[in-house]
């Protein structure tokens, strides 16, 4: 039997770079909130854990329209921390393997199916696209060797999956949580994340073809 997995969706941030004055989970993408798109992607996963912080009650209200059996995880220090802390908090009392999915990310539904069927630990990345990216360096087999702010073969988008016991409370990013354990198997996906208003406009175009 495959090891039990949890999906952790990080929705605690204030979305300051986007400038729409709303947490990113609630922004409208082609008529649906971003979090609704994500809940549809993970509809077959039993243990969904949504990390909330800024506008927590609004996110809870939106989620419960579509799904009642989610476990909401509070990151009360969302202003001082980044997604690395939310990943730890979301994972620490969940299942053995913790899949991290940023609340500002859209991944092609077929690629999500592929990722959910993977065993063990992995990191997903995409073709370079965003304004403000972190890159991954890979070997000839696509395994992730390093993360870099300057250059790399692909853009680090996530999601990723590692054993929850490897995560620690940190003030860093998700990729900082992964760095001590590299190399990790890499998988290329069709994905876009939404950090800035330009990313948002691109995402609307990007998912039209899905």
């Amino acid at each position, binding site marked *: 039997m495959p090891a039990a997995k949890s999906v952790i969706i990080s929705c605690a941030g204030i979305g300051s770079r986007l400038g729409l004055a709303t947490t990113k989970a609630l922004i409208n993408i082609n008529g649906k909130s971003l979090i609704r798109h994500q809940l549809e992607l993970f509809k077959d996963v039993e243990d969904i854990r949504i990390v909330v912080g800024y506008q927590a009650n609004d996110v809870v209200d939106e989620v419960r329209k579509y799904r*009642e*059996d*989610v476990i*909401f995880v*509070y990151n009360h220090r969302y202003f001082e921390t980044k997604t690395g802390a939310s990943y730890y908090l979301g994972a620490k*009392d*969940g299942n053995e393997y913790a899949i991290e999915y940023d609340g500002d990310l859209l991944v092609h539904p077929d690629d999500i199916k592929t990722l959910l069927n993977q065993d063990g630990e992995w990191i997903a990345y995409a073709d370079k696209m965003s304004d403000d990216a972190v890159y991954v360096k890979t070997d000839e087999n696509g395994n992730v060797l390093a993360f870099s702010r300057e250059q790399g073969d692909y853009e680090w988008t996530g999601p990723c999956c590692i054993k929850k016991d490897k995560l620690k409370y940190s003030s860093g990013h998700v990729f900082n949580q992964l760095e001590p354990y590299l190399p990790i198997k890499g998988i290329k996906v069709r994905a876009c994340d939404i950090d800035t208003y330009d990313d948002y406009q691109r995402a609307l175009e990007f998912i039209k073809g899905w």
Partner: protein
Amino acid sequence: MTKFIFDLDGTITKQETLPIISKHFGIQEEIDTLTKETIKGNVPFVESFIKRVFILGKLPINEVSNLLEKVELYPKVIKFISENKENCIIATGNLECWVEKLVAKIGCKCYCSDGLTEKNQVVKLTRILRKENIVLKFKTDGEKVVFIGDGNNDVEAMREADISIASGMTHFPANSVLSVADYLVLNEEALCRQLNQLL
């Protein structure tokens, strides 16, 4: 070992017990006014509790106890408790004489408030349960404590617990509860999944 301490009203029971009692005895208006003022923060919890016992204390204990014995419970939560009886505890502000039949049905240890009874009535409130003291007692014994609750009188216990779960199954938890909670669950599936993950 992990100890699971549950609030009773709205966490194990599907309905709050106070409105059931007040409806049965036709004292809704009196109780509703007090409840509303308490929720607004105009009457502090302990004061509200003392006033509530003063009102309810005049009711026949056996009738209240029989009424509460029939309150509907969350079946999956009851199943979890019965499978982990030794490590599950109820902490309720209710008086023991009112909830003893209900609690006996659930089958785990329970800490309540106490009152002096005479002629089938409560004549004096003698002790108000502070739930945080139960959490601290188990922590002092070296146990990891998980607290599950939904109301203002759960906040201090949740703050002291190693892990606190806000239960939004019967009503959405008070904001004070959410400000200290590690987790929020909205139905039994989510709560029981999380409890089993914490075993």
